[in-house]
């Protein structure tokens, strides 16, 4: 399928990345050639193949449902770009 400017705008909205209007053209060209490259897979008939779900031979482990850390609130907040006492601060979301 072809990648056009509208597609790029739509996908960048989904990915929450604002794309510079000046860069859209270049990005469209790059992504078009990448999608052309990956669409080589369509040459292969995979109707009878099950998609790989895990590369490990064993099933995924699940951990015990128990509390094994905690009391690290201050540590977690240490790296936040903006905080207020024990809260992360973001721009206003409710008018």
């Amino acid at each position: 399928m072809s990648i056009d400017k509208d597609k790029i705008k739509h996908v960048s909205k989904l990915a929450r990345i604002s794309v510079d209007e000046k860069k859209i053209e270049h990005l469209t060209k790059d992504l078009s050639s990448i999608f052309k490259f990956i669409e080589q897979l369509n040459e292969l008939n995979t109707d009878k193949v099950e998609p790989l779900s895990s590369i490990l031979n064993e099933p995924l482990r699940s951990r015990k449902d128990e509390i094994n850390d905690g009391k690290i609130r201050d540590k977690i907040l240490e790296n936040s770009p903006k905080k207020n006492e024990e809260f992360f601060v973001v721009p206003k979301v409710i008018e």
Partner: protein
Amino acid sequence: MADLTKKSLTEIVSLIKKKEIKSEEVTNLFIKNIKNDKKLNSFITNCNEHAVKKAKKFDKNPKLDTLLPGIPIAVKDLFCTEGVKTTAGSKMLDNFIPNYESTITKNLWNEGAFLLGKLNCDEYAMGSSNETSFFGNVMNPVAENTVPGGSSGGSASALAADLTPTTIGTDTGGSIRQPASFTGTVGLKPTYGLCSRWGIVAFASSLDQAGPMTKTVEDCALMLEAMAGFDEKDSTSIKKKKENYSKNLTYNIKGLKIGIPKEYRVDGMPKEIDKLWENGKKILKESGAEIIDISLPNTKYALPTYYIVAPAEASSNLARYDGVKYGFRSNKGTNLIEMYENTRSEGFGDEVKRRILIGTHVLSSGYYDAYYIKAQKVRQLIKNDFDESFKKVDAILTPSTPSAAFKIGEKKNDPISMYLNDIFTVPVNLAGIPAISIPAGTDNNNYPLGLQFIGKTLDEQKLLNIAFAVEKKINFKQNLNRWWEK
């Protein structure tokens, strides 16, 4: 002992164990070399003071019954290190100081090593030339203005230039083996699940694997021994008992069957690489191994598969960078959504954004089956190819890369030609199996070229043995003019 920094890790460990040299002397010699890193740009963060302090502490009461006693090690800046900035080569994490330590680095420190510095890499490990790093490109000690490969480019460069006695990298599609090949060093990508992923900045979680980068195969065995092990905190960590890779290392590879896949002979490959490959076969035969022609028919679909699976996983892994909990936040925008969009637009570089967009698209409603499910089916076929081959052979021999190191800027504007660098390394990650690259010769510019051995799941010992035997016979000698010191 002026040339100590040129010695192998194993030799330095042995000198420390015999008390012929102190950890502090070793550390200071490497720090002296690091002072000349300016042109190479292989370090993002120096930990000189920390390292000297640790070395002095070690010397006061040396604990010698460990694998890495008193050894300073610089690591790829993708491993979280407690209290030391961890950037993943990105502006997004330029201010990020983890308050926890990755399992792999913790394993190294438990064996007596300590942190020497954090090494440059492609942004979020996305790149094959170290040109996507926010902290600038890295140069290859082999020649000025030449790339060291990527994404573990800083690691490879620092190791080859004797700025660290050994290092660690991560390999999602070739990021250890390709830079090792470009810099004349040894790099191993272990079986998926052998080394814990906990505390490593995530790129594509079903492909990411940490591994050692060293000057010799013996060093590689020693490092893998220190790194590997089960970790409760990584849900895909394999439960198995520890192996003594270095103690069990042997040159005896008599009777092993080595496969040569015909699909790895690609158009336009320099003839030196063909010669190298032939020489590898010859050496294996002389060592008593048997050469068997095999076929991995879906090889050509590995890269297209990778460029669906890896960006898909990256786009969901990198969704966490929203400017709220840690990392960079843009001050532009008036509401929450604009804050997210500007943070991610300003914080990520072009290649990372490109891959997030590819990944978002292939996972989006209406395209998921056509791209992502299709890729997972082909991934199964690629894995089946290897499974079939390993019924007939013990290991597979291929070149590590389709070319030697290239010039900075040469492939930057053509993503496909950049991606083709990983054509021989990517299939291994898709199949979750181990592979090692060793230096095996040079091209007509005298730039190093590597040979790759691919093994069965958890067959690292055999791979190391084969590499050990071939390394000895090839007797590759790195001959650097040390241009970066001038």
